[in-house]
């Protein structure tokens, strides 16, 4: 849900339901890395409601597009994390297997 002015699309507040610090802080971090962003922050209006407000102010581009790009970047980062993690686990397992084989060889 976007709260902004019709005339100026570069600054608006996005109210997202069913979300909390988990997503909001990560999105805020990724938004800050974007050079088009002049200001961004998030707040939780009340801890009992499951809502979070993300404020985005840009240097000209519509805030909605900038937020979408930031979310896409976060998705790409997550996919990269997953890939790296899986490779690391496979590498670790292969190493352990190789070590055990060596130990068996030495024990013989």
């Amino acid at each position: 849900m976007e709260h902004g002015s019709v005339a100026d699309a570069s600054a608006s507040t996005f109210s997202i339901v069913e979300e909390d610090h988990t997503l909001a802080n990560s999105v805020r971090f990724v938004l800050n890395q974007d050079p088009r962003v002049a200001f961004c922050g998030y707040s939780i209006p009340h801890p009992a409601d499951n809502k979070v407000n993300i404020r985005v102010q840009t240097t000209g581009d519509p805030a909605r597009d900038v937020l979408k790009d930031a979310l896409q970047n976060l998705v790409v980062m997550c996919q990269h994390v997953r890939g790296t993690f899986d490779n690391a686990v496979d590498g670790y397992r292969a190493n352990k297997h190789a070590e055990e084989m060596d130990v068996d060889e030495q024990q013989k």
Partner: protein
Amino acid sequence: MPKKGEKKAKEVDDVPDQQEKKLPDYLELQRTRVSCKADAPIHCAYAAMGVDNSMSVEKFRKNFKIEINRLTEDDMEFDMIGVDASIANAFRRILIAEVPTMAIEKIFMVDNTSVIADEVLSHRLGLIPLDADPRRFEYMSENDVPNERNTIVYKLHVSCEKGSQRITVKSGELEWLPEGSQLNMSSPAQSGDKQKTFTSFSQSQKEIYEKPLGVKFKDITIARLGPGQAIELEAHAVKGVGKVHAKWSPVATAWYRMLPEVVLLKEIEGDDAEELVKKCPVNVFDIEDLGNVCTRNTKETCTTFLSRKRAVVAKPRACTLCRECVMCPTGEHIELRRVRDHFIFTIESTGAMPPEVLFTEAVKILEEKCERVIAELS
């Protein structure tokens, strides 16, 4: 919100300045390390200094590293380097609260003559970790019929005979019923031979899931029965997330800490070095011998040697930030820091899924959250 290491957005530069302006040392320190001192951390607008602090996805891809330290069936420890605290924290929060698991939710009590009240017994049964992969099950809402795809049924029927010793009811006595519920809903001697039970399994779960869906740990004490007491109940387990109730949390716990960095600003030699090494409870420091130095005048025969030794930082990773080393007199020469983007993650699984699978699921859930918001925005 307290922002550690907050990087403000850069103004769009018209002239691409290829010269990478470097921050002065103390500011570079502030940007990449967390100083563990008495006062709170401070941060400034690095963009104003002309330093490029923006980070593209490409740079992230280049700098991101994962190193696995320990990986067993139940827990793992790995290093995540190149990511920010907000994302590491997001993974931790999702691991604890939003990765789904199976846990007992409904109890159909037939007989409970033990000293443990019904609700207390039910609460204990809910907390027992089950050896079932939640990815193979579906969520069940209030209106759904319990079937073989969203429910696991267990039976517990124990009694202690009169005259015998007290017995302890362990979690291993929970019996898995792959055919579904055995309790009849309507009273007997009603409609024909087909009785309606509390679940409608169209096929046995034995055919769907290869291994038996028992409990993970068979030695958890559920209750104690004295002579003449008995417990007979049926338990239904469903899929849920830790946010609703902690019994559905798949990790015993998951935590991270930043890589500690211990820096000796000045050489610490001789007895001070020995004292420092003894002070640290986790042996972060070690003695390095620098050879012997004769203290007497060279004209006379040298009979005393003062072996010069100094303290070095041997295992900074083990530092627990107890600050014993900075409290002693040589403490002003020691600086304790943490590296801002290096996280040592530990995940302890309760057994439903191995820890590496849990982390992968947590990352998938963060992706799904983003995609849900993107869909809402479009």
